[in-house]
């Protein structure tokens, strides 16, 4: 995927000022920056939820920003989106919520009658099992905890059989324990299914722990783009526009100290690689 000079203006306010970056293969990318830096707008433009003002997003030499109608919906199916507030249908049961991820693959008439195939049900259950919430399949989405709802949202994303997953602040409204489960699930999806995952995050340690690459945004511009381990305190100050008093430890939400957390992931990765092989 190549993003070229992507720009979004809301009236006179420019939310994203010409963002460009390449994603050569499957990567796990964390986007960090202050509130209002344009992170959400960037992700929403990739998914077509918000139309871009100018720029291009090339995938297989096709500019996806020019897609309209059916092609646009097909692209939205290919790039699943996860939201801070989960955006599930609260009154529907968990299983149906996950199966809604398959809407784009169905004809309108059939889907309006709520006719899902055996295969859809099996696929949805499999996705729920993978995220460890199959037991809640028949409960209403609104009766689940935030962490569980976010896992349902990830299961819905999986049932889309997407080419990439965009996550807009997926853990911002979760407790640290649920946040860890959600981030680990996303990491596993990236490693096992080889999907690109782009995550908006608001804590540095999460980005460093789970992502290969970090993009830093400040006032609508990309001010940093490099490997996760290259995000030093100086870089963080540059991204957040903070002075020397800035201390990332204050906002950290990790359960243990960063060194131990990265050990845990280092352990996870070879294990996952073995499981995938």
């Amino acid at each position, binding site marked *: 995927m190549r993003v070229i000079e992507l720009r979004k203006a809301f009236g006179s306010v420019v939310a994203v000022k010409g963002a460009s970056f390449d994603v050569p293969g499957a990567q796990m990318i964390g986007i960090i920056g202050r509130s209002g830096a344009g992170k959400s707008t960037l992700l929403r433009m990739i998914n077509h939820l918000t139309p871009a003002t100018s720029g291009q997003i090339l995938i297989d030499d096709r500019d996806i920003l020019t897609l309209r109608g059916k092609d646009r*919906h097909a692209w*939205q199916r290919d790039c*699943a*989106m996860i*939201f801070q507030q*989960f*955006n599930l*249908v609260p009154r*529907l049961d968990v299983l149906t919520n996950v199966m809604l991820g398959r809407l784009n693959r169905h004809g309108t008439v059939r889907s309006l009658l709520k006719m899902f195939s055996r295969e859809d049900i099996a696929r949805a259950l499999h996705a729920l099992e993978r995220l460890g919430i199959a037991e809640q399949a028949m409960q209403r989405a609104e009766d689940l905890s935030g962490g569980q709802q976010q896992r349902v949202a990830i299961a*819905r994303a999986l049932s889309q059989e997407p080419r990439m997953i965009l996550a807009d602040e997926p853990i911002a409204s979760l407790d640290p324990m649920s946040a860890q489960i959600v981030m680990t699930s996303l990491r596993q999806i990236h490693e096992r299914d080889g999907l690109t995952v782009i995550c908006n995050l608001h804590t540095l340690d999460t980005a460093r722990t789970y992502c290969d690459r970090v993009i830093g945004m400040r006032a609508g511009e990309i001010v940093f783009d490099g490997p996760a381990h290259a995000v030093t305190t100086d870089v963080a100050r540059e991204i957040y526009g903070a002075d020397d008093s800035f201390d990332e430890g204050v906002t950290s939400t990790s359960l243990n100290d960063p060194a131990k957390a990265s050990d845990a992931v280092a352990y996870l990765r070879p294990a996952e690689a073995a499981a995938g092989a």
Partner: protein
Amino acid sequence: MTSLTYSSDQHASIVAQEQRRRLYSFLTIAVVAIIMVSGYTEAESMNSGGFMHGLRQFFDYPGDVIEEAWAAGWAFWGIVWRFIPALIETLNIAATATILGGLFATIFAFLSTRNLDVWPPLIPVSRRLMDIMRAFPELILALFLIFVLGASSVPAMIAVAFHTVGALGKLFSEVNENIDRRPVEGLQAVGAGWLQRLRFGVLPQVLPNYTSYFLMRFEINVRASAILGFVGAGGLGAELRRTIGWGSGEETAALLLLLFLSIMIIDQVSGMVRRSLVSGNLLARKVLV
């Protein structure tokens, strides 16, 4: 002591405000009283009988009706039984009109709600159409349709349905305006089409409220259908018109009893369904998602 002088200033202004508010309330009541008195005098001067004289006879007629019903004894229940087909006809008119009206009201409501990605120029058009439908009283419309289509229950049904589209559509679209946009956005990001988003993102959210308004409208429509019998639509109203006109007290009592009972039953049942939709874990809740 500065704080005290400040607070006593504030105190004075609050007292003044409160006095002004009381004056406004008094003026409102005075205006309403004047309108009532002048309206009564006006009506009294135009009346042939005189209101106070009529009021003394007010309870004579119901008294006669009950007396005659009592005199009929056990035969009264036979009369009640005989009017069951008329009741069914009235309920039929009301049910068909509510279902048909509710269906169109749903469509109009979706087309007149701003936050559902409807083609914007369509919104004021469907809103005005609903206003027009709501503005037509059923009785006037039924008179007109019976003149055109002949006296039967079909024109009455159409008249009630027409009004229902406007009345329910307005309520439905208000329910639509209050939905949570997030599920809709979630489905949009999945690549779902417009109808799919409405079906799975909006409908589960609005259906309990829709059902509640729908049942309430059914109750209103039973009364409306009964009234339409007076202009030739059949059902309870047609029978009532005949029995009141002929002064047949026991039959009038039987008809009124049927009407009251059916409305009470509908009211109780719809109340139960509504409660279970909002809170309970009844079958209705499982079916209506």
